[in-house]
């Protein structure tokens, strides 16, 4: 049976789809001034530092399964790392990428492999640098944290779906004085990362989805962000209207 929830959901998706198409067409050749997301810009520079100093970059992608509700969080995290992956492949200083989910491991491995293939250098790709670490969140974070104590890890980037166990990773990085950046979506993990990272190092909630736009400046990604802003205003408007109706004694839903 089709309920009112289905209709609301369908309307939001439909408006999002139309907005995505219209913004994409309007700005396909030139991008207007857009807001900045400072977390993602310095990630590419970390590769330069890694190449100069011989330091390793550790990327923790969390536990967001590609077959689960956090699939798009994991995809957005990888999109935010595109520039870093491409530069790593160009300098041949690949990061260690750890995942806590098998399907995400496959996606991350493919992502890094394609970064090498785009340069026509696929034979230099080392598959053991993308690793499935453990299947449960706490074990994943604990084992990934041990990697930070290995010789030469100079940067720790935590992007993706985490829980409060991400504090094991951020604490290990802080103890070693390692550069840290992160972005996550659940309130528990944000509570864990907020005291450990400053505002230019942490992408909070929906900011994680801006990574692709920030690092690639591709109109498609920006169209997605502007559509997201439009939908947000529509949701806010809907909430205000419902609140006003409730105050007037009109029952909604």
């Amino acid at each position, binding site marked *: 049976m089709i309920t009112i929830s289905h209709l609301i959901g369908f309307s939001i998706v439909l408006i999002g789809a139309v907005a995505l198409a219209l913004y994409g067409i309007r700005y396909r050749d030139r991008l207007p001034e857009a807001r900045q997301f400072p977390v993602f810009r310095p990630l590419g520079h970390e590769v330069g530092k890694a190449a100069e100093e011989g330091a390793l970059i550790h990327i923790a992608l969390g536990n967001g399964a590609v*077959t689960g509700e956090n699939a798009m969080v994991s995809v957005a995290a990888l*999109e935010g790392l595109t520039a870093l992956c491409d530069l790593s492949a160009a300098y041949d200083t690949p990061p260690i990428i750890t995942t806590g989910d098998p399907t995400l*491991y496959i996606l991350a491995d493919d992502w890094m492999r394609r970064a090498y293939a785009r340069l026509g250098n696929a034979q230099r790709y080392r598959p053991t640098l993308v690793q499935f670490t453990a299947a449960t969140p*706490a*074990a994943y974070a*604990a084992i990934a944290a041990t990697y930070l104590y290995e010789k030469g890890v100079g940067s720790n980037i935590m992007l993706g779906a985490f829980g409060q166990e991400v*504090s094991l990773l951020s604490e290990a990085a802080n103890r070693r004085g390692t550069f840290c950046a992160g972005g996550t979506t659940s309130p528990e993990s944000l509570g864990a990362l907020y*005291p450990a990272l400053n505002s230019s190092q942490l992408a909070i909630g929906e900011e994680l989805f801006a990574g692709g736009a920030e690092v690639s400046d591709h109109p498609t990604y920006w169209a997605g962000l502007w559509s997201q802003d439009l939908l947000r205003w529509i949701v806010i408007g809907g909430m205000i209207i419902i609140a006003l109706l409730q105050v007037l004694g009109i029952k909604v839903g």
Partner: protein
Amino acid sequence: MFKRILPTALAIGIGILVLIGIFIPVSPLRDVSLWLIQWALIVGIFALFLAFLNLIRVHLARVGRKGKNQITSILIVASAVASIAIIILQYSQTRESSFSSQLLHNFLVPGESALLGLTAITLTLAGMRALQTPQRIGPLVFIGIATLILIGTVPYLSPLGSIAAWIQAIPATGGMRGILIGVALGTTLTGLRIIFGTTRPHSDD
């Protein structure tokens, strides 16, 4: 064609079918949508197999390097191989009575709980460290509120308790819902980009 067009066409077609099945939950649309989701889960099981092999390969290489974490890697390889052997040998037993289930409940679950207990300490340490950087007002508010909520849970401190309850019920819940709505919209638009084929995480374009 097999490298570019086919994956994109499949992703778009299947994405649209699943989306329609969710918004119009009538047969056969709903059934097709559920089948496709089940197929994705089956593919996920094969991913688990590949990931398991990756785990063994990585840690065997670390054992060979004789580094600082050699013992950890030996334990990981040994426990992974032992776990899979036990599960294969006991495949005919019921889930409750099997030794693998006993291992899960008596070994893995307490271990996970201990690790999560450890996060309470790491969170406290992160909070203390945040206090050492006075330029940042956010962490100060964060630590102050966290302390207030903790003290508010102590019995006989009813005024603080009611303030803590109000903070949890109104601003904290509002903030959490705000974050979750933003994430839901971001998830929707990222999914739409993939369904429309404008970004393709599954192909070389």
